[in-house]
């Protein structure tokens, strides 16, 4: 008992002595300490709102440091995982570096939970993973970022690697309006959480058909450990979630910035996008070398189907189509005539195809069909599957998401200057990389025109989405209706002045891949707010082509017919020809001509960041 008293007293005095040294060294003002507490620059308040993350009542950096040192000397509880040395491993290691006596004096505490989670700390590297955007779900348009801790233990295969994720905690069955408002204005808590990589493969690659791009980072072993330690501290700690800015991109970038000096996300910009982090990672150097050492592509089920279908011999593709059209009857002569190897390729293609179909159909017959195909493959010899082609279409090569554009406009012998800002993300002329081809997704797109000695708002798009929903294989069920949604405030044509109207546009049609591009036919309907002048509704029937002439030049030609319902305005035929020159992620030049009651030329220079 006396020994215990002495020990406690001794630990207390050791803690006090170290606190004094820490004060002398002003460790509580150190940028790293503030980062560990998630206290932003020019603030004295942590962004973490979880009581369990703090050991002091005041949460002030100096008090927290004192409380932390005291807690490191606390007696070992029944569950050692609850000891501060196990809960705040990053703090412990950082303080050990600055207070070498801490290592000698502090009690030695085992942390079995952390050891298990970190695979006995055999993590050799860290990867940042980009999950491509998903136009099937509005909140997934911008993609996602997560981290992967790569164990070099032979016991953990790729799918067993540990992931770190960040996301909002949203109650089930949340009302959509509440959901949007709370998401935008900080109504939800968010946490870091973990799981095995296979869960992400399942959720993204198999269910949402999104590709994953793994960027392996050149971090030193010490930096890897720092990330690992701090990640452990952050798991399940509450933050306030803001969809636009303090989201996964912001928090993951912030975490990586603990060991990477480059700013990976703008702290001033009012929105944060996952792809922006990958742009910064890809262009960053770390210790004089590129930060990204390797990029690994984890294709979705749909991409595996597409790739293997493209690689399969022509006769196999034909028989595949025949089987699909004949209820997958494997007695079909064409199938029976294939070699074992060809049959294997075909059956494996059908596995991908059936699973792809199952995502949009509850038809129980698909499972029975799959069982028959599996049984047939089981009867064939073991052989490696057709490899999925790699891709160098890396997401970071895409055009940067935000745009500033300056344009010269010529219309009926009159010139104008136009200034345009678009917050995000890409349009039909943008270069495709790591996302759905020939699609558009933009938000907050504002154009102001200087004309006749005054500025006027030419165009404001709150939202524009165009998904061509292309079939990659030509197989039944692959691809679907092309669609468009647009919410904007814009002029009705080139001729009218002061004729802007708020409008909601929806369109549906069909797009077909052709050599180097697509052709499409769409029927749009618009609803306007200035009913007296434009009527409530108008419609556009349009036919267009979108082609990559070469890597540097994409062109779009669109011809349409506008008709107004219940309006004095006359209907008219129109066309628009637009071109993008350049393939830099940072800039391009755009030349366009449009004829909407009158002709307008435009030459624009765009900057992206």
């Amino acid at each position, binding site marked *: 008992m006396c020994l215990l008293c002495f020990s406690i007293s001794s630990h207390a005095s050791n803690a006090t002595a170290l606190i004094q040294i820490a004060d002398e060294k002003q460790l509580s003002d150190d940028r790293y300490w503030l980062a560990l507490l998630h206290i932003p620059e020019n603030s004295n308040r942590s962004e973490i709102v979880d009581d369990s993350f703090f050991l002091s009542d005041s949460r002030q950096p100096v008090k927290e440091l004192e409380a932390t040192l005291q807690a490191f000397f606390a007696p070992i509880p029944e569950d050692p995982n609850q000891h501060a040395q196990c809960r705040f491993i990053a703090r412990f290691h950082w303080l050990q570096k600055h207070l070498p006596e801490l290592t000698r004096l502090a009690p030695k505490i085992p942390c079995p939970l952390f050891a298990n989670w970190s695979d006995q700390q055999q993590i050799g590297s860290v990867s940042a993973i980009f999950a491509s955007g*998903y136009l099937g779900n509005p909140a997934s348009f911008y993609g996602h970022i997560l981290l992967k801790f790569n164990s070099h233990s032979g016991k953990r295969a790729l799918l*067993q690697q540990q992931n770190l994720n960040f996301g*909002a905690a949203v109650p089930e069955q949340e009302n959509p309006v509440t959901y949007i408002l709370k998401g935008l204005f900080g109504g939800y808590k*968010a*946490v870091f959480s973990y*799981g095995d990589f*296979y869960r992400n493969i399942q959720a993204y690659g198999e269910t949402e058909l999104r590709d994953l791009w793994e960027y392996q980072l050149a971090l030193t072993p010490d930096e890897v450990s720092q990330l690992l330690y701090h990640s452990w501290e952050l798991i399940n700690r509450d933050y306030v979630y803001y969809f636009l800015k303090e989201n996964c991109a912001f928090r993951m970038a912030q975490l990586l910035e603990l060991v990477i000096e480059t700013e990976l996300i703008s702290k001033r910009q009012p929105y944060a996008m996952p792809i922006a982090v990958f742009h910064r990672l890809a262009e960053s150097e770390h210790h004089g070398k590129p930060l990204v050492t390797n990029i690994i592509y984890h294709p979705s089920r749909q991409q595996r189907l597409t790739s293997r279908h493209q690689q399969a011999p022509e006769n196999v593709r034909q028989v595949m189509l025949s089987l699909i059209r004949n209820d997958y009857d494997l007695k079909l002569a064409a199938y029976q005539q294939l070699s074992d190897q060809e049959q294997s390729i075909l059956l494996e293609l059908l596995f991908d195809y059936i699973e792809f179909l199952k995502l949009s159909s509850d038809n129980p017959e698909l499972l029975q069909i799959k069982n028959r195909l599996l049984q047939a493959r089981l009867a064939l010899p073991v*052989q*490696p599957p057709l490899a999925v082609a790699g891709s160098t279409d890396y997401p970071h090569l895409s055009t940067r998401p935000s745009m500033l554009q300056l344009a010269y406009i010529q219309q009926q012998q009159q010139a104008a200057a136009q200034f345009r800002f678009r917050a995000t993300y890409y349009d039909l002329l943008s270069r495709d990389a790591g996302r759905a081809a020939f699609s558009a997704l933009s938000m907050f797109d504002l154009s102001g025109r200087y004309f006749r000695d005054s500025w006027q708002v030419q165009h404001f798009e709150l939202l524009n989405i165009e998904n061509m929903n292309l079939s990659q294989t030509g197989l039944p069920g692959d691809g679907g209706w092309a669609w468009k949604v647009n919410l904007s405030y814009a002029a009705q044509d080139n001729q009218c002045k002061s004729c802007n109207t708020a409008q909601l546009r929806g369109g549906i049609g069909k797009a077909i891949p052709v050599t180097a591009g697509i052709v499409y036919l769409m029927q749009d309907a618009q609803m306007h707010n200035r009913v007296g002048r434009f009527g409530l509704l108008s419609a556009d029937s349009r036919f267009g082509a979108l082609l990559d002439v070469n890597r540097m030049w994409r062109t779009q030609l669109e011809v349409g017919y506008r008709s107004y319902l219940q309006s004095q305005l006359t209907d008219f035929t129109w066309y628009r020809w637009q071109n993008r020159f350049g393939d830099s992620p940072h800039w391009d030049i755009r030349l366009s001509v449009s004829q909407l009651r009158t002709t307008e030329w435009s030459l624009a220079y765009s900057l992206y960041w």
Partner: protein
Amino acid sequence: MKLALISAAAVVLSMASSPVVQAQEQMNPWTQCGIGAMIFEKNGTAAAISNIIWDLGTTAVSSNISSKESCKGANIAAAQFINDAIVNIEEETVIGEGEHLTAMLNLMGCESSAHQQIIQQVRADLDVSHKSNIAKAEAYFLQLDTKVNGQFAAQCQVI
């Protein structure tokens, strides 16, 4: 769910009192731990994460499964994995190789040098006729578990 846990607890207690039975009985995580019916702990916000809509963090549920001691451990992790990825596992088994099979056999504690042989044996006895993915996963696990604890017991003690 509660019934499943109670019955699981009862089974565990009875097994604990009879070592001989414990050695012979095969654990079925689907009936004894509720795999396929739940399975993540409902412990506050962590389980409530559903970023599927907001995305900026997809369903990132911590990977702990049932809280019963008997429902923890390597085999249960393997059972969970098989339940979650049975579609891929089944495909890779009929093909004869794949990343999911490697991860699954790692989770079962099997040396990598034995993987190919185990896959061959599982493939030889594979029944692909089950009417649901849960039934497939359960049958697959039980078949694999028998082999791993039987003819491959010596090669599957890595954990």
